[in-house]
């Protein structure tokens, strides 16, 4: 999985490319999120436009860090999850835990 991280407005924008599933992909995102939290960045936007699928490990990671960021006054917001990713999140009952946006700017500015 390719991961690109940059600052956008008051948030950290994490752009992912590739399937988010158990193994190197989830491990890499976990490390990225841990680094962000370690730097005090609790307002996180994850762009999922190029993530065709998310498995239960990926979902577990997202909800775990959603909880961690919320505890610190922030959140994780999702941008353009694929139709199948939305279906998967809905199937396990966590879709409504997340705010979902059509673009990065809207997601980043929502933290204001």
């Amino acid at each position, binding site marked *: 999985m390719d991961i690109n991280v940059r600052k956008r407005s008051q948030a950290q924008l994490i752009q992912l490319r590739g399937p988010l*599933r*158990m*193994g190197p992909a989830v491990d890499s995102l976990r490390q990225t999120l841990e680094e962000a939290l370690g730097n005090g960045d609790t307002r996180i936007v994850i762009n999922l436009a190029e993530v*065709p*699928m998310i*498995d*239960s*490990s990926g*979902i*577990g*990671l997202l*909800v*775990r860090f*959603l*909880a961690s960021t919320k505890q610190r006054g922030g959140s994780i917001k999702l941008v353009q999850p694929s139709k*199948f990713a939305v279906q*998967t999140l809905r*199937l*396990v*009952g*966590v879709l409504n*835990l997340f705010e979902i946006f059509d673009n990065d700017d809207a997601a980043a500015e929502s933290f204001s």
Partner: protein
Amino acid sequence: MVNEPVAGSGSHGFSELLNLSMPASIQSIAAITGAIAEILMSLEIPESKRFEIDLAVQEALANAVVHGCNGDASKTIRCRLNKDQQGHIVITVTDPGPGFKPETLADPQQPENLYGDHGRGVYLIRQLMDEVQFDRGGAEIKMWKY
């Protein structure tokens, strides 16, 4: 990785299209799901169903590797794909582990589990596939897509 499909119809009119043995490692899972994806495309299975089968198999293989084999790559797991005369797909994943009791799994949709970072795999498989059956004490999962 060893692929040993048995050509022609087996019992009950099933055709075995895939019979793969692989080391129990995370790295091997993509190889199997890739092989299955190619077969499903050749069968002209609709994209939405292909996604659902792919994810269910991903989950089953991950469970086999992590829980069935404790990530021990010296152990082997097996994945088979069969198709019956009605075009129903059945995928079987078998590991050498001690098995488990599916009925003891917690419901990931319960409020206390919603933010958990694991425990959704079997639940997701049941949502994605039309029928799920555990055999060999839980060490084998059979999944149907109609």
